[in-house]
């Protein structure tokens, strides 16, 4: 049953991503539990133009998807991560199609 669901879920994810715009990858140091991760999700989610966030706690990696018109600066990302109580290690824009 689960296997049947994978294709439509992936399709929906990709459609949503295509409909949105740029993606950014944030590597965050200090992220170690789900309750603490909520603060960072809320801070980044409040940035204008953010349509989707995906936190991978094991990798300490956050994927931020913006609308086509919006963009995320490293300075803004660093500030929001700091406000959440953590440290931004690296910031990169993911090339389209990657």
């Amino acid at each position, binding site marked *: 049953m689960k296997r049947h669901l994978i294709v439509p879920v992936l399709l929906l994810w990709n459609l949503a991503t295509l409909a949105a715009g740029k993606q950014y990858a944030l590597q965050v140091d200090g992220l170690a*539990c789900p*309750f603490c991760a909520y603060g960072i999700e809320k801070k980044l989610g409040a940035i204008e133009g953010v349509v989707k966030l*995906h936190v*991978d706690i*094991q990798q300490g990696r956050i994927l931020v998807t913006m609308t086509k018109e919006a963009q995320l600066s490293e300075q803004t990302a660093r500030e929001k991560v700091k406000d959440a109580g*953590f*440290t931004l290690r690296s910031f990169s824009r993911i090339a389209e199609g990657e």
Partner: protein
Amino acid sequence: MNEARADRVNKGWSATLAVLLIGTGGWIDRARGAPITFNTALPVAKGEFIAREQVVVNQSGDDPSGLDRDRRSQAAVTVLGYGATGRLALFGVLPYFDNELDVVVGGRRVTRSASGFGDLTLFGRYTLVQRDWPGRNFRVAPFAGVKAPTGDDDERDALGPLPPSVQLGSGSWDPLVGVVATYQTLDYQVDTQLSYQANNKANSFEAGDVARLDGSMQYRLWPQTLTTGLPDFLYGVIEANLVHQGKDRINGSTDPNSGGTRLFLTPGIQYVSKRWIVEGTVQIPVLQDLNGTALENDYIARFSIRFNF
């Protein structure tokens, strides 16, 4: 000190050694979300609120005085934290008590009781040291605050004024200071807190000052292996609470049957999601080196929920 109490104290010190050994073992192995028996380590982001509601049942009944005292305190403790900046967090703690003391007076057993809001504690915590690495972090944060006399301290019943152990508040402004340190990884978290509360006089009564050393280890039991995403965590928790209270003073005289040292060993469980936490513990006294006929604790049970707003 009577023989039975002396024997229990000796056993208690043995248990202390065992706790320290268990703690050392925890460091060697991968050890263990935030402590359950103390609030100073609660994580709060800038501009965000966190709330904890805790039910605490405190039972004391092992009375060496012969008065056959039995004290029960049930409390609903509300904790609200706010992140003023990334490093400064402000907290308020307000308990609602339902206190009862059964005691033999004039040959008959009576129950003396009081219910209502207790004293409000306000404190601020500043993160002085912050180190972040991939999947782990370390924090050291001093804190300071005051316990305000918001609870009634002049409750009475047909027998007269209630004893201090049944009153809802102390009637005094009591400052507190301390420091809390946290080391957290994806697998475990260790917290330790050292605190001191100086109790002042009100209504001719001054409770003894309280010094505490608390430790907490939380170890992730589930999921055993992390994959992608942000799963909920289930932690096994072990805490230890060493509490020393000085002797009370009544009308300027020291009460020889008050104060002493208690050590609790506190196993617990904690379920952590990104929006809420459910947790429970039982504080079991393993050492009670109390003065005179001070009443011993049987246990303290805690159940709480926490929310990120």
